[in-house]
C-alpha cells in the first residue's frame, strides 16, 4: 500500500536534508541529468521550435480527446486487442486481476509504469496470490527493498552503489556470499541473470505506455534496458496500462513528441528501444503475445478538463522538471509523499489525492521557474502551483500562522509609506548584522528557515531606492 505521507511533507523534507546517504546519492545524480539534457538540446538547433509543436499537438489532442479515444479504441479492437475502460483505480485493478486470472497466471513480469504505482497493482496482485516481478533495473531493486520509486524515470535515484550491493547480498541468497562487486557492471550482470529466469517463466506481461496512437491503435513504450520489450514479447498475454491523456492522433505526431522525450529525460537523442505494439500475434508470427489488452484509465484526469489544471494533461513524464528543481534536488522524491514527486507532482498530486492532503507540495517551490523553462510541452508549472496555493487559502486549509502572517503582510503592503519604511529597516538591519559577509548561515528567529539553506545578504538598498536611482540616472 502506498502510504500517502504528503501531509507530512515538512517533516519528510527535514528528515531528507539530514540524511547523509540520501544527500550523497542526490548530489551524484542530479548534475549528470542536467549536463546530459543540456548537451542533447545543444545538438538539436530545432529543439525550441519542437517544444511549441509538442505543446500544440497535445493541446489539439486534449481539445478533441473524446473523439481520439473512441477512434483509438476502435483501432485496437480492429487489430484483435481489447480495451478496458476504467474510471477509477479500483476498476483498473479489477480488470488487470481478471485478465491475469483468466490466463491462469502465477507470475507477472512488469515493465516500468508510473500509473501502475498509482493503481497499486503489485499489492493487489500479491493479495490475490499472483507474484508481480518488476523488471526495470531500478524498479527491481526498489521491489527487493520494499520501497517506492523516488523519481519517475530513475526509480532508484535515492540509492548509492553500496545500497545495491547490500540488497543483492541480502536477497540473492543462492549466490556465493564471498562474490565481489568490483564494478557497477557486476551488479547489472547479476540482475540480468536473475531477471532472465523471471522473463521466461511469466504468464502475463504488464507494461505502461508513453503514448497511445489513435490512427493505428498502437501503444508505445520507451526504454533503454529492453526489459519492457521482453515483458511484452515473451508471455502469452500482454497488458498495457495507460491513462487517457497518453493519446496522440498520428504516428507523425508521436515522432515530434519522441524527439522531445528522450532529450528532456535522459539527455539521449533517442532511447534504445521505442516500441509500437498493435494487437496480438498475427498469423504466421513465431513469437509475441497471443492476447493484447489495454487498460485505459481515467482515475481523476477527466475532472481536470475545463479547470486551470487542464494543461497539466500535456505532461509526457520526462522528469526534466524534477531534475532541474532545487527543492527536489535537496529533498529527493520520497519526501513528496506519493507517486509523483517534483514540480509535476506538486501540481498533479493535489488533483488526484486532494489539496487537503497534498497542500504542502505546491508550497514546496522557490518559484525559480526552471521547471517551466525546461518542460518539453511548456506546462506553466509555477502558475499552476500558485493556483493550488490560492485554492488552499480559499478553502482555509493553510495553517493559522501562514494566514495570520499573510494578513499582516497584506495590511502593510496596502500602506506604501509603511511598507517602504519596513523594508528599508529590514534591509538596513540585515546589512548591519552581516558585518560584510555575503550570506547568513543562521539568523535569530529564523533558525528553521536557515537550517537547510543560507540567506543572501540584501545588497544595494530596497527596490524603491534602486528604482529612484535608475530613474534619476535616466
Amino acid at each position, binding site marked *: 500500500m502506498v502510504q500517502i505521507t504528503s501531509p507530512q511533507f515538512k517533516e519528510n523534507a527535514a528528515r531528507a536534508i539530514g540524511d547523509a546517504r540520501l544527500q550523497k546519492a542526490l548530489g551524484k545524480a542530479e548534475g549528470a541529468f542536467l549536463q546530459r539534457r543540456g548537451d542533447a538540446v545543444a545538438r538539436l538547433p530545432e529543439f525550441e521550435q519542437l517544444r511549441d509543436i509538442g505543446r500544440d499537438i497535445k493541446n489539439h489532442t486534449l481539445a478533441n480527446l473524446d473523439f481520439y479515444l473512441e477512434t483509438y479504441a476502435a483501432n485496437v479492437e480492429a*487489430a484483435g486487442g481489447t480495451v478496458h475502460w476504467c474510471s477509477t483505480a479500483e476498476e483498473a485493478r479489477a480488470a488487470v486481476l481478471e485478465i491475469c486470472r483468466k490466463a491462469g497466471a502465477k507470475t507477472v513480469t512488469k515493465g516500468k509504469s508510473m500509473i501502475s504505482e498509482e493503481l497499486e497493482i503489485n499489492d493487489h496482485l500479491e493479495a490475490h496470490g499472483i507474484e508481480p516481478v518488476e523488471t526495470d*533495473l531500478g524498479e527491481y531493486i526498489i521491489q527487493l527493498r520494499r520501497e517506492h520509486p523516488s523519481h519517475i524515470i530513475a526509480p532508484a535515484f535515492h540509492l548509492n552503489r553500496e545500497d545495491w550491493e547490500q540488497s543483492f547480498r541480502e536477497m540473492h541468497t543462492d549466490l556465493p556470499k564471498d562474490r565481489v562487486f568490483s564494478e*557497477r557492471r557486476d551488479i547489472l550482470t547479476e540482475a540480468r541473470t536473475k531477471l532472465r529466469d523471471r522473463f521466461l517463466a511469466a504468464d502475463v506481461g504488464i507494461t505502461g505506455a508513453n503514448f497511445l496512437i489513435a490512427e493505428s491503435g498502437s501503444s508505445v513504450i520507451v526504454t533503454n534496458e529492453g526489459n519492457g520489450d521482453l515483458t511484452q514479447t515473451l508471455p502469452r498475454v500482454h497488458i498495457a496500462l495507460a491513462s487517457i491523456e497518453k493519446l496522440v492522433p498520428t504516428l507523425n505526431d508521436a515522432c*515530434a513528441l519522441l524527439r522531445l522525450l528522450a532529450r528532456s529525460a535522459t539527455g539521449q*537523442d533517442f532511447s*534504445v528501444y521505442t516500441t509500437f505494439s498493435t*494487437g496480438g500475434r498475427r498469423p504466421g508470427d513465431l513469437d*509475441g503475445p497471443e492476447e493484447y489488452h489495454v487498460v485505459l484509465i*481515467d482515475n481523476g484526469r477527466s475532472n481536470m478538463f475545463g479547470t486551470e489544471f487542464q494543461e497539466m494533461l500535456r505532461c509526457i513524464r520526462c522528469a526534466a522538471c524534477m531534475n532541474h528543481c532545487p527543492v527536489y534536488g535537496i529533498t529527493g522524491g520520497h519526501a513528496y509523499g506519493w507517486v509523483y514527486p517534483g514540480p509535476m507532482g506538486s501540481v498533479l498530486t493535489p488533483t488526484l489525492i486532494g489539496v487537503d492532503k497534498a497542500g504542502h507540495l505546491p508550497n514546496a517551490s522557490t518559484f525559480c521557474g526552471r521547471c517551466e523553462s525546461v518542460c518539453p510541452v511548456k506546462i506553466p508549472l509555477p502558475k499552476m502551483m500558485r493556483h493550488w496555493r490560492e485554492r488552499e487559502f480559499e478553502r482555509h486549509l493553510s495553517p493559522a500562522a501562514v494566514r495570520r502572517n499573510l494578513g499582516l503582510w497584506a495590511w502593510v503592503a496596502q500602506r506604501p509609506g509603511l511598507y517602504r519604511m519596513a523594508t528599508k529597516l529590514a534591509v538596513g538591519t540585515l546589512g548591519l548584522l552581516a558585518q560584510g559577509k555575503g550570506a547568513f548561515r543562521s539568523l535569530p528567529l529564523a533558525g528553521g528557515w536557515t537550517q537547510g539553506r543560507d540567506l543572501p545578504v540584501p545588497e544595494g538598498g530596497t527596490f524603491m531606492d534602486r528604482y529612484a536611482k535608475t530613474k534619476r540616472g535616466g
Partner: protein
Amino acid sequence: MSKEAILNAIRRGLKRGPLPADQRAMLEARMLARPRHLIPARSRVPRPDQIKLFIVNVEKEFGSVTRVADVKEIPGAVAEYLSQQNLAPRFVMAPHPELQALPWSDRAMLEFETRRAEASDTVSVQHGYAGIAETGTLMLPSDPARPTTLNLLAETEIVVLRASRITGPYEDAWDMLRAERQDAVTGGFMPRNVMLVTGPSRSGDIEQTLELGASGPRRLHVIVVDDDPAALPV
C-alpha cells in the same frame, strides 16, 4: 459504462457535447493527411551523407558497423565479427528470404538455425527493415520472417541492412512501411510490433551512470550493404 462516464466527463469539462459531424470529419481528415511536423535539418542531406550519418550515430550509441560492397560478402562479415569478439561461430537467424539466400556455404564453419530466438542463443542475425540516419536507429517490424525475440534474447545481435533502406528521419521509414506492408488482420500497415532500436541495451539506474547490457543485447552490430549506387561514398 465507464467508457460513457469518461467521455461525458471530458465533454463536460470542455463545455460541449459530442462533436458535430463536420468537426469529426475535419479530425478524420487530419488523421488521414497526418501532417508532418518540423523535421530537423540534420538528416536532410545528400544520400551518401545520410548513410554516413546513420553509421556515425550507430557508433555514437555504442553499436558497431561493417560496410560491405555486396550481399555476397555478408557471411564473411558475420564470421569476421564473431571471431573479433571471440564468439563461437554459431547463431540463430531470422527466416527471411534475403538472409536465407546468402552464400552461407562459403563459410562452412558458421552454424546457424533459422527460427525465433530462445534463451540459450548467444548470437542472433536479424533482417533490418530500415535504418534512420537522424539518430542511428534501426526499424525492426515483427513479421513471420523477422521474429521479435531475435532483437532481445541473445547477448549479441547482428542486423543486416541494405543502404537503400536508410532514410533521413523517422517519418520516411514509417512511410516506407505504410507503402509496403498490408496487415492480414487489420488491412492497415501496422504489424503486431515495431521496434525502433538505437544501440545496445543499457541502464543508467545505478547512480545514473550508464552501463551496457541490461536485459537486452550487450552488443549491436550492423552490417550495411552498399546496394544503392546513389548512396556510395563520394
